[in-house]
């Protein structure tokens, strides 16, 4: 079978300059700065949409239940990873729950929603089986204790994302 011949440029070969030992390698590193800037779009899908719309429009926190093991997921999951079945039953969980763990970060990075110190808490809402990661406010981390009952504080202006809850604070002191 005939093979396509690679294109050749024989007329240019006579133009090769003789090799020379140029002393061009430098020990100084060559470092350039670059940028990677792109807009991304994310469609959370109908299940997550309902979770966020309930936060935005009704100040309600909704969970979703696995029909097999009964786990109530907050935030919502469309598949129970353990049972590999679709979660379908919506459950309204309380706007209050128990602090399972917490910590404070003392440095500021751009992706954090507020300047340092940022106090993070894991809250198991009443009726949920999973912990929701969120910010804590109106608290002194020095005196905070695991097991404290917490309540959600909603923003006045809500846009349909997780920060429609501004933070969680100790319940009942207000």
């Amino acid at each position, binding site marked *: 079978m005939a093979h396509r011949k690679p294109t050749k440029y024989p007329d240019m*070969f006579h133009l*090769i300059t003789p090799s020379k030992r*140029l002393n061009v390698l430098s020990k100084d590193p060559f*470092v350039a*700065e*670059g940028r990677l*800037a792109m807009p991304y779009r994310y469609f959370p899908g109908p299940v997550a949409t309902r979770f966020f719309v309930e936060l935005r429009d009704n100040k309600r926190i909704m969970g979703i239940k696995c029909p097999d093991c009964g786990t109530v997921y907050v935030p919502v999951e469309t598949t129970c990873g353990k049972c590999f079945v679709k979660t379908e039953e919506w459950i309204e969980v309380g706007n209050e729950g128990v602090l399972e763990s917490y910590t404070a970060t003392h440095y500021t990075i751009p992706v954090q929603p507020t300047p340092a110190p940022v106090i993070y808490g894991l809250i198991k809402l009443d009726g949920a089986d999973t912990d929701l990661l969120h910010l804590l406010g109106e608290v002194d981390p020095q005196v905070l204790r695991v097991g404290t009952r917490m309540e959600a504080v909603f923003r006045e202006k809500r846009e349909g994302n997780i920060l429609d809850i501004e933070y969680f604070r100790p319940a009942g002191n207000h």
Partner: protein
Amino acid sequence: MNEELLEIIIPLDLKYKWSAGPHLGAFLRGLKEEKIIANRCPVCARLQLPPTPACGRCHIGMGEDWVELSHQGSVISYSSVVDPMFDAGIGGMRPVPYTIAAIVLDGGPDVAFFHKLEENNPEKVKVGMRVEAVFRPPEERKALMEDIIHFRTIG
């Protein structure tokens, strides 16, 4: 279920540093000095442009055989870009039209150099046409590919 479907726009804007390494670094520093340099494999003798630390085919270090190529050469292939496209390097739409060409520089017949042409009219670009690098004035050069503005048609 609710009719509404959320759509979330997440802008990503990362700054990064890129270490060119000594070989590509030497090439880019060469541009600042108005030089286009390649290096040569000690085994198969083929040139690498931009210069590389190793020959991919022979799996051997390239050594110190450096070749300075002419600023003039011939277009072997080209592409006219007319559709606007998003460029992550500038975080916006890249200006069009522009013409990219693979240019075989005199002195390096087995390598092609990839740059823009001054001529943006696809009717006027031909395979085989002779072109020459137009460098920025020395004070504007930054040891980057942009130190060459484009290749202009000659002859």
